[in-house]
């Protein structure tokens, strides 16, 4: 029943697109003010999608297996929370979520933009409708969440256990808020070009959307990363996996746009660049969806693949890109010569430098991700592009980037001198000594590690100082930049000083190294609702006499029948102790992996600080300095 209602309300939602377009076009011709009807219709369309979404959630809660999506991804013994999160833990449901956010955002946009010119608002709505209609058709045609199965099966196939996790339950919605937020930026940029509204006012207006999308995208990536850290059981938080890269690319584009908008808000320069970035951000979000959904990428995250769907998104994506190129060429004109005067050493230049490096990082990730696909199609050679590639191309460039980031925010607009030369030199010297002291161990990597850590410390000190110098002026930017320096420092220390032990142990056995002793004391078995847990008890004794009890777990899920291993992590401010226990077929022993990872929690904290910076900036009345 719920499925039936959901299915019908989807069709009604699509019908309303027709009304909206009809009235919008009429409104564009006839009236001076925005027709109230259009706003009502947009909100009604949103409500139809909400009903449809709730229809799917209710089908999941009731375990209505006559619905194909529910049958494929749910099971009666699954806890209620994961029944609900299962709604978007699959291809069809996650697309419905996309659509939900699309319609929600355009409603908010219309309600919140009454200070803006009418034509601009209507055109934004029209472009957004093009996207919305595309998603409606995609959903209804190729991936309906409401397909009917007859006869009704008694039991569902279950959700992949590694997706049954609180962080992953909220990861897709948050990430989608970021992705879909970029659709508003896209539509509004096209509308601004068509109505010649690319201006400081536009920048001021769209900045809120850029910030909101950026904060959500940052948090979404963070959640995914935290999930990968404790759930995938190999103790890393970023693997340069194609699907991770795909979320990182819009993030780079959005970060660039965020900085570019700051300039545009001040004076009317870099307009073409801002337009290109607005278009690129959305195109990257869309192609992310395309690459993940089409199953082209070899990745842990690919949970749906169907070439027909991939083809649809590809055609849709190209339509949107051609549309935007067309509008950019024929409607956009650069009338910015008048204000185009700033000098070498100025805030403008430093933002350009930011944009330059961001684009470089983006291009490394983009090329690294899609190059293997093209190479395979053209030459049938399969190559892998993994962490070593990204490290080699990104790490050296991080050094000038961090230094520029420390200097840039202190510069004035238009023309500036190096300020605080004294402090900056001192900071640089201290940073270098500190890094050399910390790294101390001389080996091949000594030089690059020291220089990297030095530049990160340099940024760390100079942003810390700004808290005292500038106090509450520009607090948001300062927090974000400080967070970034902390992030780089934590990642570097984490990489350089991580330690691990991998061994096979039977119950009762002990493993010794110079630094620690691992004692496998015993195992216990527990029965949960949808899995059986085998919990190991390990006693790890450190060199300094302290000891930790760690309880990694093996979970044998009933539906689908999969064994997963759950890491046990002891976190404190300085290090994480991370242990997993893996089942080895036909053996009495277990494979034990024990890792000591310094500053792990600071990686999460610093990303939260970065988002907090964006969040604070959202409430700031006006941009200053």
């Amino acid at each position, binding site marked *: 029943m719920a499925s039936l209602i959901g299915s019908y309300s989807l069709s009604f939602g699509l019908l309303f697109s027709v009304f909206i377009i009809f009235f919008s076009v009429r409104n564009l011709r006839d009236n001076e003010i925005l027709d109230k009807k259009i706003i009502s219709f947009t909100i009604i369309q949103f409500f139809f999608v909400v009903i449809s979404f709730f229809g799917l959630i209710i089908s999941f809660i009731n375990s209505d297996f006559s619905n194909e999506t529910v049958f494929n991804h749910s099971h009666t013994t699954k806890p209620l929370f994961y029944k609900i999160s299962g709604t978007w833990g699959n291809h069809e449901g996650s697309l419905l979520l996309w659509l939900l956010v699309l319609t929600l955002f355009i409603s908010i946009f219309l309600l919140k933009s009454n200070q803006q010119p009418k034509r601009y608002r209507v055109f934004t709505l029209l472009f957004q409708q093009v996207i919305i209609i595309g998603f409606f058709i995609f959903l209804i045609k190729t991936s309906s969440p409401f397909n009917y199965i007859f006869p009704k099966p008694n039991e569902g196939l279950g959700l992949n256990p590694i997706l049954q996790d609180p962080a992953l339950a909220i990861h897709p919605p948050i990430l989608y808020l970021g992705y879909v937020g970029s659709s508003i930026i896209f539509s509004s940029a096209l509308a601004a070009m068509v109505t010649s509204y690319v201006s400081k006012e536009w920048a001021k207006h769209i900045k809120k959307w850029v910030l909101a999308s950026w904060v959500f995208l940052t948090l979404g990536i963070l959640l995914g990363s935290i999930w990968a850290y404790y759930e995938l059981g190999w103790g890393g938080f970023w*693997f340069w996996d194609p699907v991770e890269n795909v979320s990182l690319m819009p993030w780079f584009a959005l970060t660039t746009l965020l900085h570019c908008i700051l300039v545009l808000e001040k004076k009317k320069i870099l307009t073409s660049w801002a337009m290109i970035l607005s278009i690129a951000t959305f195109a990257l979000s869309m192609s992310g969806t395309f690459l993940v959904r089409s199953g082209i990428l070899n990745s842990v995250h690919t949970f749906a693949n169907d070439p027909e769907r991939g083809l649809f998104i590809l055609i849709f994506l190209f339509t949107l890109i051609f549309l935007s190129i067309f509008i950019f060429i024929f409607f956009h004109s650069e009338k910015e010569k008048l204000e185009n005067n700033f000098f070498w050493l100025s805030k403008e230049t430093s933002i350009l430098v930011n944009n330059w490096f961001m684009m470089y990082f983006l291009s490394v990730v983009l*090329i690294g991700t899609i190059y293997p696909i093209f*190479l395979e199609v053209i030459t049938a*050679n399969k190559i892998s592009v993994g*962490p070593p590639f990204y490290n080699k191309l990104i790490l050296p460039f991080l050094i000038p980037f961090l230094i520029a980031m420390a200097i840039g925010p202190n510069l004035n607009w238009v023309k500036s001198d190096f300020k605080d030369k004294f402090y900056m030199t001192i900071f640089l010297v201290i940073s270098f000594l500190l890094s050399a002291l910390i790294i101390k161990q001389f080996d091949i990597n000594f030089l690059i590690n020291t220089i990297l850590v030095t530049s990160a410390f340099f940024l760390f000190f100079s942003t810390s100082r700004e808290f005292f110098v500038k106090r509450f002026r520009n607090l948001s930017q300062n927090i974000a930049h400080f967070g970034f320096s902390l992030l780089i420092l934590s990642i570097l220390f984490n990489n350089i000083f991580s330690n691990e032990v991998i061994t096979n142990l039977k119950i009762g056995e002990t493993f010794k190294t110079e630094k620690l002793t691992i004692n496998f004391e015993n195992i216990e078995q527990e029965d949960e609702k949808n899995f059986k847990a085998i919990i190991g008890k390990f006693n790890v004794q450190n060199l300094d006499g302290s000891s930790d009890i760690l309880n990694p777990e093996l979970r044998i899920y009933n539906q689908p029948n999969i064994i997963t291993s759950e890491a046990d992590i002891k976190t404190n401010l300085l290090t994480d102790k991370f242990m997993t226990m893996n089942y080895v077929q036909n053996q009495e022993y277990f494979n034990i992996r024990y890792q000591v990872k310094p500053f792990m929690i600071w990686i999460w904290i610093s990303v939260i600080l970065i988002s907090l910076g964006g969040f604070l900036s959202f409430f700031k009345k006006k941009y200053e300095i």
Partner: protein
Amino acid sequence: MKFINIFLIVAIILNFNFLKADEIKTENKIAKNLRCLICQGQSVHDSDSEFAISLKIVIKNKIQEGLSEEQIYNFLKMKYGEWILYDPVFNRNTYFLWLLPILIFLAGGAIIIKRFYYKK
């Protein structure tokens, strides 16, 4: 004399431990740079699949045979193809992969510099 003997033995043992530690380090480093072919986007080091376990043993043996890191990569490349290497080799197929980002970086720099010269 006895003294020297003991000293020598201690030195050898210490050295041996060093070698052993280095071996494990290289082993892990190599395993981290290899794709586990039967897994979904996992390195050999991170995986506990049978393939990964047997490959780790192969790496260990090869190191003990005295092969260098480079030689081991080449051996595995011959056996499993380039797909196994996470660090793509620089050759005809990958010129663009390695150089395009650098070219983009240079082009970006050129555009920024041009802005300033164009004005004057």
